[in-house]
Protein backbone atom coordinates (compact mmCIF):
# COMPACT_ATOMS: atom_id res chain seq x y z
CA UNK A 1 0.00 0.00 0.00
CA UNK A 2 1.12 3.54 -0.72
CA UNK A 3 0.24 6.86 0.81
CA UNK A 4 1.00 10.38 -0.26
CA UNK A 5 1.19 13.05 2.43
CA UNK A 6 0.68 16.62 1.22
CA UNK A 7 1.92 19.32 3.58
CA UNK A 8 1.01 22.95 3.02
CA UNK A 9 1.32 26.14 5.01
CA UNK A 10 -1.88 27.15 6.80
CA UNK A 11 -3.85 29.75 4.83
CA UNK A 12 -3.05 32.36 7.51
CA UNK A 13 0.72 31.85 7.16
CA UNK A 14 2.63 34.00 4.70
CA UNK A 15 4.43 32.00 1.99
CA UNK A 16 7.37 34.06 0.68
CA UNK A 17 8.44 31.29 -1.71
CA UNK A 18 5.00 30.93 -3.28
CA UNK A 19 4.72 34.71 -3.59
CA UNK A 20 8.07 34.88 -5.36
CA UNK A 21 7.06 32.15 -7.81
CA UNK A 22 3.81 33.99 -8.45
CA UNK A 23 5.54 37.32 -9.05
CA UNK A 24 7.93 35.74 -11.54
CA UNK A 25 5.02 34.51 -13.66
CA UNK A 26 4.29 37.98 -15.03
CA UNK A 27 7.16 37.65 -17.50
CA UNK A 28 5.61 34.44 -18.89
CA UNK A 29 2.27 36.10 -19.49
CA UNK A 30 0.38 33.61 -17.29
CA UNK A 31 -1.98 36.29 -16.12
CA UNK A 32 -4.83 33.99 -15.11
CA UNK A 33 -2.87 32.65 -12.14
CA UNK A 34 -3.84 34.73 -9.11
CA UNK A 35 -1.98 32.90 -6.35
CA UNK A 36 0.72 30.26 -5.81
CA UNK A 37 1.30 28.47 -2.51
CA UNK A 38 4.30 26.18 -2.11
CA UNK A 39 4.09 22.89 -0.18
CA UNK A 40 5.74 19.48 0.12
CA UNK A 41 4.71 15.95 -0.79
CA UNK A 42 5.96 12.73 0.78
CA UNK A 43 5.51 9.35 -0.91
CA UNK A 44 5.23 6.59 1.67
CA UNK A 45 5.43 2.81 1.16
CA UNK A 46 3.71 0.52 3.67
CA UNK A 47 4.33 -3.16 4.41
CA UNK A 48 0.84 -4.09 5.60
CA UNK A 49 -1.17 -0.91 5.26
CA UNK A 50 -1.17 0.35 8.84
CA UNK A 51 -2.84 3.71 8.32
CA UNK A 52 -2.23 4.82 11.88
CA UNK A 53 1.52 4.78 11.28
CA UNK A 54 1.14 7.18 8.37
CA UNK A 55 -1.23 9.40 10.36
CA UNK A 56 1.33 9.62 13.16
CA UNK A 57 4.21 10.29 10.77
CA UNK A 58 2.24 13.08 9.10
CA UNK A 59 1.11 14.63 12.36
CA UNK A 60 4.19 14.23 14.55
CA UNK A 61 7.07 14.53 12.08
CA UNK A 62 6.16 15.87 8.65
CA UNK A 63 4.01 18.78 9.88
CA UNK A 64 4.70 21.62 12.29
CA UNK A 65 1.17 22.30 13.60
CA UNK A 66 2.04 25.94 14.33
CA UNK A 67 2.40 26.75 10.64
CA UNK A 68 1.36 23.75 8.54
CA UNK A 69 -1.48 21.36 7.80
CA UNK A 70 -1.58 18.05 5.94
CA UNK A 71 -3.79 15.67 4.03
CA UNK A 72 -3.22 12.07 3.10
CA UNK A 73 -4.07 10.43 -0.23
CA UNK A 74 -4.28 6.61 -0.01
CA UNK A 75 -3.55 4.26 -2.90
CA UNK A 76 -4.21 0.52 -3.10
Amino acid sequence: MKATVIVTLKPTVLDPQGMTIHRSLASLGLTDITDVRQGKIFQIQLKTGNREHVERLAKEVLTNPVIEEYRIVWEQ
Partner: protein
Amino acid sequence: MKFGVVIFPGSNCEHDCYYVIQSVLGKAVEYIWHQDTSVKGFDAIILPGGFAYGDYLRTGALARFSPVMTAIADYAKKGGVVFGICNGFQILTEAGLLPGALLRNVGLKYLCKFEYLRTETTDTPFTNLMTKGQLLRIPIGHGDGNFFADADTLKRIEDNGQVVFRYADANGQITPDTNPNGSLNNIAGIVNEQRNVMGMMPHPDRSSEEILGSADGKLIFESMVNALVRA
Protein backbone atom coordinates in the same frame (compact mmCIF):
# COMPACT_ATOMS: atom_id res chain seq x y z
CA MET B 1 29.30 26.43 37.47
CA LYS B 2 29.37 24.41 34.28
CA PHE B 3 27.89 25.23 30.87
CA GLY B 4 27.02 22.59 28.28
CA VAL B 5 27.02 23.17 24.52
CA VAL B 6 25.03 20.61 22.52
CA ILE B 7 26.42 19.31 19.23
CA PHE B 8 23.96 17.99 16.65
CA PRO B 9 25.13 16.62 13.31
CA GLY B 10 25.32 19.84 11.31
CA SER B 11 25.83 22.27 14.21
CA ASN B 12 28.56 24.74 13.26
CA CYS B 13 28.65 27.41 15.98
CA GLU B 14 29.36 25.10 18.91
CA HIS B 15 32.98 26.18 19.14
CA ASP B 16 32.05 29.89 19.08
CA CYS B 17 29.87 29.29 22.14
CA TYR B 18 32.47 27.08 23.82
CA TYR B 19 35.15 29.72 23.22
CA VAL B 20 33.05 32.57 24.67
CA ILE B 21 32.25 30.61 27.83
CA GLN B 22 35.78 29.31 28.34
CA SER B 23 38.06 32.08 27.08
CA VAL B 24 35.97 35.26 27.34
CA LEU B 25 34.02 34.45 30.52
CA GLY B 26 36.54 32.04 32.06
CA LYS B 27 33.85 29.53 33.05
CA ALA B 28 33.79 25.74 32.77
CA VAL B 29 32.16 24.34 29.65
CA GLU B 30 31.77 20.91 28.05
CA TYR B 31 30.27 19.68 24.81
CA ILE B 32 27.17 17.49 24.98
CA TRP B 33 26.76 14.99 22.13
CA HIS B 34 23.24 14.80 20.71
CA GLN B 35 23.08 11.05 21.42
CA ASP B 36 23.62 11.62 25.15
CA THR B 37 20.60 10.78 27.27
CA SER B 38 21.50 12.86 30.34
CA VAL B 39 22.41 16.50 31.00
CA LYS B 40 23.14 15.92 34.68
CA GLY B 41 25.74 18.21 36.24
CA PHE B 42 25.19 21.18 33.90
CA ASP B 43 24.01 24.56 35.21
CA ALA B 44 23.09 25.97 31.80
CA ILE B 45 22.70 24.48 28.35
CA ILE B 46 23.32 26.19 25.00
CA LEU B 47 21.91 24.96 21.69
CA PRO B 48 24.25 26.52 19.13
CA GLY B 49 23.67 27.74 15.60
CA GLY B 50 24.22 25.77 12.43
CA PHE B 51 22.20 23.43 10.27
CA ALA B 52 21.27 20.46 12.47
CA TYR B 53 20.39 17.49 10.26
CA GLY B 54 21.06 19.69 7.24
CA ASP B 55 17.83 21.63 7.94
CA TYR B 56 16.11 18.70 6.19
CA LEU B 57 12.29 18.69 6.35
CA ARG B 58 12.17 21.97 8.32
CA THR B 59 14.85 23.82 10.29
CA GLY B 60 15.16 22.15 13.69
CA ALA B 61 12.54 19.52 12.88
CA LEU B 62 14.73 16.42 13.02
CA ALA B 63 17.05 17.60 15.80
CA ARG B 64 13.99 17.45 18.04
CA PHE B 65 14.17 13.63 17.88
CA SER B 66 17.79 13.43 19.08
CA PRO B 67 17.96 11.56 22.42
CA VAL B 68 19.46 14.56 24.22
CA MET B 69 16.31 16.61 23.54
CA THR B 70 14.23 14.41 25.86
CA ALA B 71 16.74 15.12 28.64
CA ILE B 72 16.77 18.84 27.81
CA ALA B 73 12.95 19.04 27.84
CA ASP B 74 12.97 17.46 31.30
CA TYR B 75 15.78 19.79 32.42
CA ALA B 76 13.86 22.84 31.17
CA LYS B 77 10.66 21.69 32.86
CA LYS B 78 12.51 21.58 36.18
CA GLY B 79 13.68 25.18 35.70
CA GLY B 80 17.08 24.55 34.08
CA VAL B 81 18.48 27.44 32.04
CA VAL B 82 18.41 26.69 28.28
CA PHE B 83 19.57 29.10 25.57
CA GLY B 84 19.04 28.46 21.84
CA ILE B 85 20.91 30.64 19.34
CA CYS B 86 19.72 30.78 15.71
CA ASN B 87 19.33 27.11 14.71
CA GLY B 88 19.12 26.42 18.46
CA PHE B 89 16.07 28.73 18.59
CA GLN B 90 14.51 26.88 15.66
CA ILE B 91 15.08 23.55 17.45
CA LEU B 92 13.49 24.85 20.67
CA THR B 93 10.32 25.92 18.83
CA GLU B 94 10.11 22.59 16.98
CA ALA B 95 10.55 20.77 20.30
CA GLY B 96 7.68 22.80 21.79
CA LEU B 97 9.95 24.36 24.45
CA LEU B 98 9.25 27.81 22.99
CA PRO B 99 6.07 29.06 21.28
CA GLY B 100 5.84 29.99 17.60
CA ALA B 101 7.87 28.95 14.58
CA LEU B 102 10.60 30.39 12.34
CA LEU B 103 9.59 30.75 8.69
CA ARG B 104 11.65 31.54 5.61
CA ASN B 105 12.82 35.18 5.57
CA VAL B 106 10.33 37.39 3.76
CA GLY B 107 12.95 38.46 1.19
CA LEU B 108 14.04 34.79 0.77
CA LYS B 109 17.67 35.84 1.14
CA TYR B 110 20.10 34.43 3.65
CA LEU B 111 20.93 37.49 5.76
CA CYS B 112 24.33 38.02 7.36
CA LYS B 113 24.74 41.46 8.96
CA PHE B 114 24.75 43.43 12.19
CA GLU B 115 21.40 44.41 13.70
CA TYR B 116 20.38 46.63 16.61
CA LEU B 117 18.30 44.78 19.18
CA ARG B 118 16.17 46.56 21.74
CA THR B 119 16.01 44.83 25.13
CA GLU B 120 12.31 44.49 25.99
CA THR B 121 12.59 42.80 29.39
CA THR B 122 15.33 42.46 31.98
CA ASP B 123 13.33 39.94 33.98
CA THR B 124 15.11 36.87 32.56
CA PRO B 125 18.31 34.96 33.37
CA PHE B 126 19.62 36.22 30.02
CA THR B 127 19.11 39.97 30.36
CA ASN B 128 19.42 40.75 34.08
CA LEU B 129 22.52 42.95 33.55
CA MET B 130 20.83 45.24 31.01
CA THR B 131 18.42 48.11 31.33
CA LYS B 132 15.02 48.02 29.67
CA GLY B 133 15.30 49.54 26.23
CA GLN B 134 19.07 49.00 26.06
CA LEU B 135 20.32 48.55 22.50
CA LEU B 136 22.64 45.68 21.64
CA ARG B 137 24.51 45.46 18.35
CA ILE B 138 24.53 41.76 17.45
CA PRO B 139 24.79 40.09 14.01
CA ILE B 140 22.27 37.78 12.38
CA GLY B 141 23.09 34.95 9.97
CA HIS B 142 20.00 33.06 8.84
CA GLY B 143 17.64 32.17 6.01
CA ASP B 144 14.74 31.14 8.25
CA GLY B 145 14.40 33.72 10.99
CA ASN B 146 10.93 35.04 10.31
CA PHE B 147 9.17 34.62 13.66
CA PHE B 148 5.54 33.55 13.38
CA ALA B 149 2.84 32.63 15.88
CA ASP B 150 -0.95 32.55 15.56
CA ALA B 151 -2.81 35.63 16.81
CA ASP B 152 -3.75 34.14 20.20
CA THR B 153 -0.23 32.89 20.89
CA LEU B 154 1.30 36.20 19.82
CA LYS B 155 -1.01 38.10 22.15
CA ARG B 156 -0.13 35.77 25.02
CA ILE B 157 3.63 36.18 24.37
CA GLU B 158 3.26 39.97 24.30
CA ASP B 159 0.94 40.16 27.34
CA ASN B 160 3.28 37.97 29.41
CA GLY B 161 6.31 40.07 28.51
CA GLN B 162 7.95 37.07 26.85
CA VAL B 163 9.45 39.14 24.01
CA VAL B 164 13.10 39.69 24.97
CA PHE B 165 14.55 41.40 21.88
CA ARG B 166 13.14 43.30 18.89
CA TYR B 167 14.93 44.45 15.75
CA ALA B 168 15.35 48.22 16.03
CA ASP B 169 17.30 51.08 14.49
CA ALA B 170 20.30 52.83 16.06
CA ASN B 171 17.90 55.06 18.02
CA GLY B 172 15.84 52.19 19.38
CA GLN B 173 12.88 52.82 17.09
CA ILE B 174 10.90 49.73 16.03
CA THR B 175 9.55 50.09 12.49
CA PRO B 176 8.87 47.81 9.50
CA ASP B 177 12.10 49.19 8.01
CA THR B 178 14.14 47.81 10.92
CA ASN B 179 12.65 44.34 10.44
CA PRO B 180 15.17 42.29 8.44
CA ASN B 181 13.17 39.09 7.92
CA GLY B 182 9.43 39.69 8.35
CA SER B 183 9.22 38.57 11.99
CA LEU B 184 5.89 39.45 13.63
CA ASN B 185 6.22 42.56 15.83
CA ASN B 186 9.97 42.68 14.92
CA ILE B 187 10.58 39.82 17.34
CA ALA B 188 14.22 38.64 17.48
CA GLY B 189 14.12 36.64 20.71
CA ILE B 190 11.62 35.26 23.23
CA VAL B 191 11.48 33.33 26.49
CA ASN B 192 9.04 30.65 27.58
CA GLU B 193 6.38 31.37 30.21
CA GLN B 194 8.65 30.16 33.03
CA ARG B 195 11.37 32.49 31.62
CA ASN B 196 14.17 29.89 31.92
CA VAL B 197 14.32 29.04 28.20
CA MET B 198 15.32 31.68 25.64
CA GLY B 199 15.70 31.53 21.88
CA MET B 200 17.04 34.29 19.64
CA MET B 201 18.02 34.44 15.98
CA PRO B 202 20.95 36.91 16.32
CA HIS B 203 24.36 35.57 17.38
CA PRO B 204 25.77 36.85 20.71
CA ASP B 205 28.44 34.15 20.28
CA ARG B 206 29.74 36.13 17.28
CA SER B 207 29.76 39.44 19.15
CA SER B 208 31.35 38.94 22.55
CA GLU B 209 34.69 40.61 21.85
CA GLU B 210 35.47 44.07 20.42
CA ILE B 211 37.75 42.54 17.79
CA LEU B 212 34.62 41.00 16.20
CA GLY B 213 33.00 44.42 15.81
CA SER B 214 30.88 44.33 18.97
CA ALA B 215 31.12 42.90 22.47
CA ASP B 216 27.43 43.50 23.25
CA GLY B 217 26.61 39.78 23.03
CA LYS B 218 28.79 39.15 26.07
CA LEU B 219 26.16 40.86 28.26
CA ILE B 220 23.79 37.95 27.58
CA PHE B 221 26.32 35.32 28.66
CA GLU B 222 27.33 37.44 31.66
CA SER B 223 23.67 37.75 32.65
CA MET B 224 23.44 33.95 32.60
CA VAL B 225 26.49 33.71 34.88
CA ASN B 226 24.95 36.36 37.15
CA ALA B 227 21.67 34.45 37.33
CA LEU B 228 23.46 31.19 38.14
CA VAL B 229 25.58 32.83 40.87
CA ARG B 230 22.46 34.27 42.48
CA ALA B 231 20.50 31.00 42.21
